[in-house]
């Protein structure tokens, strides 16, 4: 969540309320489960850590004064590092999804390239799992656990294929 908010701020300074909306939109149907207060708590933490700063914007009569948050240099560095890092040891679907959305919106990275890097990492792990599966005698209980590991990695890889299809189509559009 922290990284996703920072990445959204990399595009342009924003109100907490707008950030909440953008996060919810990026999360799609899952966005409904997000607590609105979370964004403000996170922004306060990020400010304390020196990654964002805020300015008060003049409110209109129907809208009170609001804080507009912007990235500091340190915040910018952290976003760049986050986008470049391969998700491990466990790929978190929500985080990776938000990373792709943020990369595309901020234009700091190409979502399709992020998918490629992630796919290589998963394939490397699947290769290790498969080597271990094949080293086990058929029908052993140890092999059963490895089978589960391999099946999950396979599912993640299929999801990445779907990510690649959608994001490369968007890049062409």
């Amino acid at each position: 969540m922290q990284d996703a908010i920072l990445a959204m701020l990399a595009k342009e300074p924003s109100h907490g309320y707008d950030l909440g909306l953008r996060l919810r939109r990026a999360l799609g149907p899952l966005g409904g489960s997000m607590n609105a207060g979370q964004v403000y708590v996170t922004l306060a933490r990020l400010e304390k850590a020196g990654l964002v700063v805020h300015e008060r914007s003049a409110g209109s009569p129907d809208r009170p004064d609001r804080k507009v948050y912007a990235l500091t240099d340190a915040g910018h560095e952290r976003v760049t590092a986050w986008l470049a890092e391969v998700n491990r040891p466990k790929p978190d679907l929500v985080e990776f999804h938000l990373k792709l959305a943020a990369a595309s919106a901020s234009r700091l990275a190409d979502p399709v390239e992020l998918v490629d890097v992630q796919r290589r990492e998963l394939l490397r792990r699947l290769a290790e799992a498969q080597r271990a599966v094949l080293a086990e005698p058929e029908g052993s209980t140890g092999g059963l656990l490895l089978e589960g590991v391999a099946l999950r990695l396979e599912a993640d890889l299929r999801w990445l294929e779907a990510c690649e299809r959608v994001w490369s189509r968007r890049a062409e559009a």
Partner: protein
Amino acid sequence: MNVLQVRDLTKRHGHKHGLVRAVDGVDLDVPAGQLLAVTGPSGCGKSTLLHLLGGLERPTSGQVWLAGQRVDTAGERALARLRRRSVGFVFQSFHLVEELTAAENVELPVLLAGGSPRAARRRAGQLLDQVGLAHRARRQPWRLSGGERQRVAVARALANEPLVVLADEPTGNLDTAATNEVLRLFADLRAMGQTVVLVTHDARVAATADRLISMRDGVFVDDAWLGGPAGRLGDLFAMGD
């Protein structure tokens, strides 16, 4: 040394929507002893690529060398000889001769390449033993399980000590246990230094290779080395929860 070398290889197929480039200008070097997997969605051109490598189809343009010998421009006789002696094919649907026993299926390519019946019998016995099917030698294919049939097909592919084994979806008709049987066999071949190119849409099969090429729309979109250091299982168990 590269067993296979491919330069700017292109194959176009006529299609109702006009010409389709099944393979669109790819370059590839396969060093001796490599287990290479080519993967991608159906229609990406991976099977066509395999056919071009083995001289089953001729390219529209570009070059293919097998151990320094030009494949794409070879005459029909040279090509037939090359397919018989230098390349071993393994197919999804086994392509065994149902009227013959497992041993006779493996003997056949040796005989067709001019080997004596005695040499053929010896070679078949040795290969069936190697794929763990010495006890099934006298059975006909319909009396074998799917995994056993494909292992016979692999033994047959090895009959003439080919420079390269080309396998097209070799586990496509098999369940998980049988798939693992065949993958173990490929791992053995690799350990013996046999060059193998296998085409698959199955990520788990592809992940057993040393190197993985991903194809989309006739081009290579990724070329990744998977044969990293083994034994990092601690890492694996943290996955996916």
